[in-house]
């Protein structure tokens, strides 16, 4: 809008005019025409000893208005006439600097662990490992490409502005004390106002422009106040002249001849002189006081404007808007072209920003800024080199550090999008890997670890690999112990080892498979024991023998059942031996003996089918003998000794080797003989 542009230009040129105007340095130096009157000053001092004393040739006021960043009230030494106009308009910049200084005062940095310690609250956090830093960094990595296009336009304009302000040495402070020429300043101011409307500027340029305007206004106001002070000086000089004339008149010899003879002539002279000069003295004092007040007010305004500007510079520096710092410093030099470049700050902020305790000046701030810019540029260059060699892990760290320093630098803002995506992917993969470790999903952790190794040539996969290996080994070891316990039948130990394996590696694939099998095994064991008990109850020795291995495993921890199993197997062995013996006897043609061999065992184990079959078979092959023997036993059982003896003898007839028949017959014969009378 042309009217607005014209207004801005007009304002800017008027500001330039104010800046370039001759601001009297020796405001309070007395004009030469009154230097001969030394006494008026002495007279004023004698009459009014409390009047403010203003030095010449110096802008420092011994009345010493105290202007601190945190104290925007202009105080004199308590003298009358000391104006305090505008003392409370310190501006937000001063308050911000105070707040920043207050915060910094309580912080301590531990370089060993990159930790920042808040001594006031006792909080500790890692500079590079906390959510806020992470969030900002990831936001940077996820920046939209289209937004970056628009951002690059802004950065180009910013660079152009810096070129105008620092034409010979971009990114370095000006080569002249007063900064760029008037034309460059004008164009840069216009550009500054334009940049302030840019979405990426966030109004910072506008703030600087406003501060420049305020400073220029303060300078103009100061000029006006000094002009008024100059007027007052002329009036004072006039009054002093009149005072001098009056004093001379009353102390001259023209009037003394007439009063020479009068007594008290000298005393009357002094009184008359004082009376006549008193009005002039009062007026002079009043004028001087007013003049001092205006000078103080002028300096106060300027100091306030300076303070605001300095606070803005410091604030921009702490916000890491280094280009704006350089812009602000260039404008500072232009606006406050008085050679006074010291920045007043306090406490921790001063420590941080000062170099070895040296006073913080605009030049120092610019130096720090350019150093920070250099750090940022070198950081980005090193990151680019690392990205070229796939050293993603180092590149990520360096990029985060560089981002912490120079977030708003063009090099950071124009960092390639594909590299940002790569770093972001690397961070996400690493986060997932550690999360997988945390939840003990080692399969996923292994996958992510392999992916990270593939992505970054400088990635150390050993920690995660070691953690995975340790957990897997531990879990598998517990599973092996569980299997052994299952084999041994120790269910309690098995369950404990399975639980321990699950604690170490919950998603161990062998766990699901093995635990199920082990439980099946225990079910099988229970079933086996039940079956064994049933077979033992039924005296089914053949059935027990058929599952000998199963039962042996099942009774591994059951001593009683072990003995039962052992006994059953021994019985079967006895049966088999008897059958074998019988078979041999039968093979020698002695079916009767074979029958005897198996018949005796069958009476112990009447349920063995094989035994019964053998008994039946041999009986059929030696029927007379078997019949005789059985009947003999029966007769003997009935007490029929004579019958039994004869039947035993009959059995012996068929099988002479039958020991039972022989022994029984003999025994019964002896019984018969003993009964003989």
């Amino acid at each position: 809008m042309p009217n607005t542009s014209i207004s801005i230009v007009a304002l800017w040129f008027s500001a330039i005019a104010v800046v370039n105007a001759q601001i009297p340095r020796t405001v309070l130096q007395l004009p030469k025409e009154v230097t001969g009157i030394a006494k008026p000053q002495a007279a004023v001092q004698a009459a009014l000893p409390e009047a403010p004393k203003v030095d010449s040739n110096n802008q420092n006021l011994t009345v010493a208005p105290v202007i601190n960043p945190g104290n925007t009230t202009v105080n004199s030494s308590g003298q009358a006439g000391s104006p305090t106009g505008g003392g409370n308009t310190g501006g937000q910049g001063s308050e911000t600097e105070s707040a920043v200084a207050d915060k910094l005062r309580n912080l301590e940095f531990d370089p060993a662990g990159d930790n920042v310690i808040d001594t006031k609250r006792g909080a500790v956090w890692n500079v590079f490992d906390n959510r806020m830093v992470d969030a900002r960094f990831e936001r940077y990595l996820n920046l939209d490409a289209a937004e970056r296009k628009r951002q690059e336009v802004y950065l180009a304009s910013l660079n152009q502005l810096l070129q105008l302000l620092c034409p010979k040495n971009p990114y370095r402070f000006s080569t002249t004390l007063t900064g760029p020429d008037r034309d460059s300043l004008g164009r840069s101011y216009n550009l500054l106002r334009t940049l302030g409307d840019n979405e990426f500027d966030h109004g910072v340029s506008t703030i600087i422009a406003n501060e420049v305007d305020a400073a220029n206004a303060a300078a103009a106001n100061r000029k006006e106040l000094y002009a008024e002070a100059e007027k007052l000086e002329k009036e004072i000089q006039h009054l002093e002249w009149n005072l001098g004339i009056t004093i001379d008149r009353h102390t001259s010899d023209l009037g003394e001849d007439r009063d020479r003879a009068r007594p008290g002539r000298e005393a009357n002279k002094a009184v008359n002189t004082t009376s006549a000069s008193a009005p002039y003295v009062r007026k002079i004092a009043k004028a001087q006081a007013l003049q001092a007040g205006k000078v103080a007010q002028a300096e106060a305004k300027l100091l306030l404007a300076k303070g605001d500007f300095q606070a803005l510079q410091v604030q921009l520096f702490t916000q890491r808007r280094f280009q704006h710092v350089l812009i602000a410093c260039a404008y500072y030099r232009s606006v406050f072209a008085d050679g006074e470049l010291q920045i007043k700050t306090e406490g921790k902020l001063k420590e941080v920003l000062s170099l070895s305790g040296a006073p913080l000046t605009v030049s120092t701030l610019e130096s720090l800024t350019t150093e920070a810019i250099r750090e940022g540029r070198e950081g980005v260059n090193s990151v680019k080199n690392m990205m070229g060699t796939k050293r993603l892990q180092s590149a990520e760290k360096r990029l985060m550090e560089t981002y912490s320093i120079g977030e708003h630098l063009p090099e950071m803002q124009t960092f390639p999008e594909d590299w940002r995506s790569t770093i972001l992917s690397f961070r996400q993969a690493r986060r997932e890997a550690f999360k997988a470790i945390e939840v003990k999903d080692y399969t996923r952790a292994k996958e992510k670890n392999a992916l990270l190794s593939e992505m970054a040539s400088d990635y150390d996969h050993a920690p995660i690999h070691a953690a995975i290996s340790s957990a897997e080994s531990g879990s598998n070891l517990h599973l092996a112990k569980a299997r052994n316990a299952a084999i041994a039948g120790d269910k309690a130990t098995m369950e404990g080892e399975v639980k321990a394996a699950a604690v170490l590696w919950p998603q161990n694939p062998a766990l699901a498979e093995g635990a199920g099998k082990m439980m099946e095994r225990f079910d099988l064991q229970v079933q086996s024991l039940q079956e064994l008990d049933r077979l033992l109850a039924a005296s089914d020795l053949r059935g027990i023998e058929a599952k000998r291995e199963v039962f042996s495993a099942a009774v591994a921890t059951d001593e009683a059942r072990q003995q039962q199993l052992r006994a059953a197997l021994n019985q079967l062995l006895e049966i088999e031996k008897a059958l074998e013996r019988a078979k041999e006897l039968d093979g020698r043609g002695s079916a009767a003996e074979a029958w005897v061999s198996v018949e005796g065992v069958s009476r112990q184990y009447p349920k063995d089918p094989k035994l019964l079959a053998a008994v039946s078979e041999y009986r059929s092959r030696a029927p007379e003998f078997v019949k005789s023997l059985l009947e003999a036993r029966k007769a003997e059982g009935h007490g029929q000794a004579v019958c039994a003896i004869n039947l035993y003898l009959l059995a012996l007839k068929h099988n002479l080797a039958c020991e039972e028949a022989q022994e029984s017959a003999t025994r019964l014969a002896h019984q018969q003989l003993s009964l003989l009378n």
Partner: protein
Amino acid sequence: MARRRKSSPHVSLFSLVMVGALLVALVAGIWKLYNPHGAKELLPLPAYLEAPASFSGNSYRVEVVVINRLAQNEKGTTYTCAAGEHPLAIIVPQEVMPQYRIEKGQLLYIDLRLSNDGAAIATTIAKK
């Protein structure tokens, strides 16, 4: 050469009778000797062996072959004998024991007395 006087056809009938009587006596003697108890029954072995007690109190005679000695004490000896196909346990009291030694394979004629429970107790023993 001289001729012998012809004998008389009168061999003494008396002689013949005497010889005959001697023969008969001899036979009788022999019969008596070897069948002194010709009046006792033979032991019915199948029935006896089946139910010895049912024959208790009776006397019988058997003709046995000695198989072996089954038992012995001061009161007597029990022999296993074979009466035909049937083995038989015979108790020989000490007082009935003959002068000669009873050996395996000897053929003996034994008179038996069956005890209350049917045990065969020899009363006389004669060798064949």
